């Protein structure tokens, strides 16, 4: 678990920032000025004193070698996590001007690191002991049965609402507006089916989503109906599809797949946020297994999810898959070393193959919106007001999704390409392609687009 020699880039450090303001504030502190007694240890600890406005400097310490991701501690009063001082110190450490020399951690830093590692060990031991005697199995089964009944009632009620809607016609949905869906979504929350609730909420937004809304509304109603029916008849489904239905409904699963140890390349990391929750998606590609896996991490509103993996690095770690046919989601298990520069790229396919793979993936999961894919040798090409990724060696092209067209990352991609072929990782689905990371032709590091 050593860290020496491996520096992060500024981008990688800034990716840890919980918001734009922190990123900005952290950047400013990434210079030697306010720091004193900064240092780092062979074990992956970085510490320093940062002069603030008060008389006592803040004590900042970061454990970058921890197996669950970087951990931070700072004596400043900020509620941001990591705070600007931790970001600034990491930037200073990432720079190459020798501002953070190797050395012996001061007592205050050492105490925290030791306490932390001890707690982590205790917890691991506790978990190991706990899983052996997981409460009362009979009570757990009763709870699960009770919840299944609630969901069944919810799904039946939703079916009723969908058939009512189709009986009266979608045209009336536009007139009745958003309130109807909000109320239905609330009923699905009561039924403890968060997956259904989220789909219902999205239905409510479709009538105001512009031209072509009736088609999109019918599609989503039909897929929601398909999910209801899947739940109601889950006993008759093959195991894999049944597990997919359970996860789409929103039942918690546990990553019980066999741990796969690999060198996992971090392909992309991006956040989406609503008023209550920030969701972070991290795509990984296994060098040996050839698998692409998705890690999800959550943070309460305004706080960054704790897991952060810099794009372009690899980590030697174990991943366990969540259940469900065609599902990419996995959980990060033990990490055997801190992330290090990758030195390889994911293999790519052409546009036709990418589309075909999405089609095939629908066999296992008909609710799949998109699928991770790396496109090799594609050229970002303007197509009227739209953009597409066109095969450099063929005549086929994939349009970008409407969301991707409006992101600033589009222009980083276009600039990187300059009309020449590039390798692009992204999500490919029925709305088009959403680019997340790109590599230039020839040598060059991964460029994040999201």
């Amino acid at each position, binding site marked *: 678990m050593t860290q020496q020699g491996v520096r992060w*880039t*500024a*981008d990688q450090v*800034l990716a840890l920032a919980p918001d734009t*303001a922190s*990123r*900005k*504030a952290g*950047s*400013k*502190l990434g210079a*030697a*000025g*306010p720091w004193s007694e900064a240092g780092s240890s062979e074990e992956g600890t970085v510490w320093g004193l940062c002069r603030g*406005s008060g008389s006592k400097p803040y004590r900042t310490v970061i454990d970058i070698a921890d197996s669950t991701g970087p951990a931070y501690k700072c004596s400043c009063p900020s509620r941001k996590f990591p705070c600007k001082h931790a970001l600034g110190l990491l930037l200073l450490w*990432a720079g190459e*001007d020798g501002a953070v020399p190797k050395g012996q951690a001061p007592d205050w830093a050492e105490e925290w690191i030791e306490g932390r590692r001890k707690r982590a060990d205790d917890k691991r031991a506790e978990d190991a002991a706990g899983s052996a005697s997981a409460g009362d199995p009979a009570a757990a089964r009763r709870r699960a049965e009770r919840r299944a009944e609630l969901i069944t009632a919810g799904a039946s009620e939703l*079916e009723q609402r*969908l*058939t*009512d*809607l*189709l*009986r009266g*016609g979608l*045209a*009336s949905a536009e007139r009745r507006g958003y309130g109807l869906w909000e109320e239905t979504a609330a009923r699905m929350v009561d039924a403890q089916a968060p997956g259904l609730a989220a789909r219902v909420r999205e239905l409510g937004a479709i009538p105001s989503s512009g031209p072509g809304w009736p088609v999109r509304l*019918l599609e989503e*109603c*039909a*897929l929601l*109906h*398909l999910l209801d*029916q*899947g739940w109601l008849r889950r006993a008759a*489904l093959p195991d894999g599809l049944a597990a997919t239905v359970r996860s789409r409904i929103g039942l918690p699963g546990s990553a019980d797949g066999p741990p796969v140890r690999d060198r996992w390349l971090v392909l992309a990391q991006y956040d989406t946020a609503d008023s209550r929750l920030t969701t972070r998606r991290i795509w990984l590609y296994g060098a040996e297994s050839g698998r692409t896996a998705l890690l999800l991490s959550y943070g309460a509103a305004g706080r960054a999810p704790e897991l952060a993996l810099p794009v372009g690095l690899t980590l030697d770690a174990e991943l366990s898959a969540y259940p469900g046919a065609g599902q990419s989601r996995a959980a990060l298990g033990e990490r055997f070393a801190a992330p290090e520069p990758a030195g390889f790229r994911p293999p790519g396919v052409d*546009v036709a193959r990418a589309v075909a793979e999405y*089609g095939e993936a*629908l*066999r296992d999961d*008909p609710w799949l919106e998109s699928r991770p894919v790396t496109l090799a040798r594609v050229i970002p*090409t*303007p197509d*009227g007001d739209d953009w*597409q990724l*066109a*095969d450099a060696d063929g005549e*086929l*092209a*994939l349009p970008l999704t409407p969301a991707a067209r409006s992101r600033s990352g589009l222009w*980083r991609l*276009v*600039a*990187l390409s*300059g*009309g*020449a072929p590039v390798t692009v990782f992204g999500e490919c689905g*029925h*709305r*088009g392609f959403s680019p997340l990371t790109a590599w230039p032709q020839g040598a060059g590091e991964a460029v994040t687009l999201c």
Partner: protein
Amino acid sequence: MTSSPVPASAAAPAPASAPTSASTEASGGSHWEELVTVALLGTTRRTPSGVTSRRDAPTALLDAAAVETVRRRAGMRPGRAAARVEPVAEDTRPPLPPAAARRLTMLLADRPGAGSSGRRGAAPDLKELLPQWLATANRQGFAAPPQALPALLDAARGRTDIRPAVLAFAGPRALWLARLNADWRFALRAAPGGGAVLPGSEEPERMHALWEEGLFAERVALLAAVRAQDAGAARDLLAGTWASERAEDRLMFLDSLRTGLSAADEPFLERALADRSRNVRATAAELLSALPGSALAGRMAERAGSCVAIDRTHGTPGPHGTPTIAVEAPHECDAGMERDGVVAKAPAGRGERSWWLGQLVEAAPLGIWSPRLGGRTPQEIVALPVADDWQGELHGAWCRAAVRQRDPSWSRALLGTPGAPEAGGPGAVSLAERAKLLGTLGVEERAEWVAGFIAAHGLSEAFQLLGVCAVPWAGPLGRAVVDALNIARDAGSYPWSFSGVMGLAERCLDPAEAVRLEGLTAVPDESENAAPGAGGYWAESFQRLVTTLRLRAAIQTELTHP
């Protein structure tokens, strides 16, 4: 997405959860369209085909739609590629060193609106360092990292001051991008000929074609480029079409003659004195007056000379019988004066005669005054008393002439000694005029004069003068600024009274000075006469200054010793 639903069942999965009697066998777009129509109208109004019981119709419709939706998605095909854009030519400049590339990312992340603003604290203002970073990178000839171009163009869009440096650094790929994004059109306007290489006088045919047929901006760029290369060729180009140009265009084109102005331009400018447009006439006159040997300068010398003389009898002679300068302003603005660019109508609130006098003296070659005023040096002339309150008018006109004719000895004389009491307050020569005069002096002399000014008068009036000094500041100037800041702190005022100078110091002080500033970054004990808390704020300001200097030193190292 070009969606071509495939009829084959191979491409469409049969969702196990949707057992359906409806039309899995039916296919194609028409079936889907029928489903959408029924769904829109509602099954009470229209029954989907193949359904007998009206009660089950909605479920049957949803079943069929589910199958069709998944089939449509699974059967999707890629579209045709649109016409490709022409790839950009390769940038042959060396790439940025990795540390410098990281620094650029950080500088660009610190854009206005990129976070909450407020009191600046001890952290450096990164966006203020971008211009210097760019200047250094350009001097070193590095190529911009392609992925940084959008952020660079966005930064240049909001800040015209850094546009030329950004566009030079960003290279041809930025212009290639600008053609694809309307937000960056400014890059095409700013680059001569939209980035294409301009023809020079060695390609007369292309040059003439562009001059005859080009857009206005292209023609201005062409003229400037040719003028810089071959002044005569540019003048010939201009003379060829002069009569047919619009007045505004003539004015813009005439301006290009400022570059490499010489006696050879005089005949052309003399003809322009008869131009239909008053603005063109005035500009031609101004250019001619900057040529001390020109006929116009000679005519103006005669007029101005007749207005200013030594008078030994007028008023009270100074001590030791010092002579006085007597001024007799012109009584009328005749046609000849007007033809030579003198504006007859005075602005509101100004006397006509003093208005005319100012213009005559401003346009007269400075060389006439020494012989005219008793063989005195400029220093001695400026020191002479001027009768009847004409001093301000006369000295002001001399200042404008010294700047126009770039005459260091007159500039020196009019600036006076920096420590003189009138240099800091309202004297005959204003601070704005002094700043312009300083611009005619050499870099070292300029810094020395301003250092002397600050030592004598403090910082409150120095801002304008500091702005014309070369960066990084010369040693004595830097020390004078730091000493003055230190004195201001000891005097107990708040640092924000000096925030302008402090900001300049962050950008202009030599990074090597950081060491000497260390002692000022501690919070001093509160003295009795100090404003409450001022000591802490000063410490913070000096910390920011030191941090910024360190950062500038790091930037320099990253870009020069990769």
